[in-house]
């Protein structure tokens, strides 16, 4: 196995693991937030507008951690900096 193969192997495995772990953690977080949000909506339907907006904004913040993982896995697959480093050096 030359260095190129090792980098490719490591990148693919790490990219898969990054998305798997990152997505499941973000999904658990979002599910908990949605759980509480639905409970509050059922208790206070009058406050639906405020609760829904806060819920969406909160979900966006939680989701960004999952999206960071997704972007990192994309960088590893499509734009891996170490491949160029190896080819250049």
């Amino acid at each position: 196995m030359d260095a190129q193969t090792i980098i490719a192997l490591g990148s693919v495995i790490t990219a898969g693991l990054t998305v798997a772990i990152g997505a499941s953690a973000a999904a658990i977080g979002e599910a908990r937030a949605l759980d509480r949000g639905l409970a509050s909506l059922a208790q206070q339907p009058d406050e639906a507008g405020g609760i829904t907006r806060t819920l969406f904004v909160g979900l966006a913040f939680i989701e960004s951690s999952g999206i960071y993982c997704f972007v990192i896995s994309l960088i590893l697959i499509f734009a891996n900096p170490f491949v160029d480093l190896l080819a250049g050096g």
Partner: protein
Amino acid sequence: MDVTHLSPDEVIFWESGFVKLNATIVFTWVVMAVMILTSWLVTRRLSTSSDVPKAQNMLEVVVEFLRGEIAEVSGGDKPDSYLPFVGTLFLFIAGASLFSIVPGYVAPTASLSTTAAMAGAVFLAVPIYAIVCQGPRTFLRRYVEPSPVMLPFTVLGDISRSFALAVRLFGNMMSSAKIAAILVVVIPFVFPIVFQALGLLIGMIQAYIFAVLAMVYIASGMTVTETSEASADRTKHRERSAH
């Protein structure tokens, strides 16, 4: 855009020396042209009678919705000063993702350059709105407000939230475009349509989230530093506008 392209930046339509026309620029222009043309056609014959044209009615619903959301987030006073900026962000992102029902089109928001430019605009809008409304002293005092030790963290927070704003929109739009491209290769019949529909829903939610977050950031640049004088001013203003 097929599976091997990371973003529409890599699809180049026309090239002459230094100047390149990639899919991002071309589709941004298409979205801009269609939206400008539509609003020009609709606002050409505005009516205030009970007989309102359908298109005018639709645009009024959108503008009313935006004004309501902005008023709620910013604390109820003068949504019209934020409407041009926040409303444009919402309409452009929503329009860019709505167009993906056209085959061959890729949302320009699926490119990090577009979303980074919009997040940069929000990054600049926060101090501009705060300085215009409250003056530079009040705005700068926010950075040293409980103690000057917090200064690097506040600056870091400002930068990282703009970064998150750009990456969130890019990640969502690009992933839905990419999932559609992969599904067309794997299962070409019926199934991709379901994911296209999901992509449309995600695009609308992301447009809403981007606009609301931009508004939240602009509002947070102003209300955190609110002095008793400013709040008294605002109560006076609200009482005046209530009459």
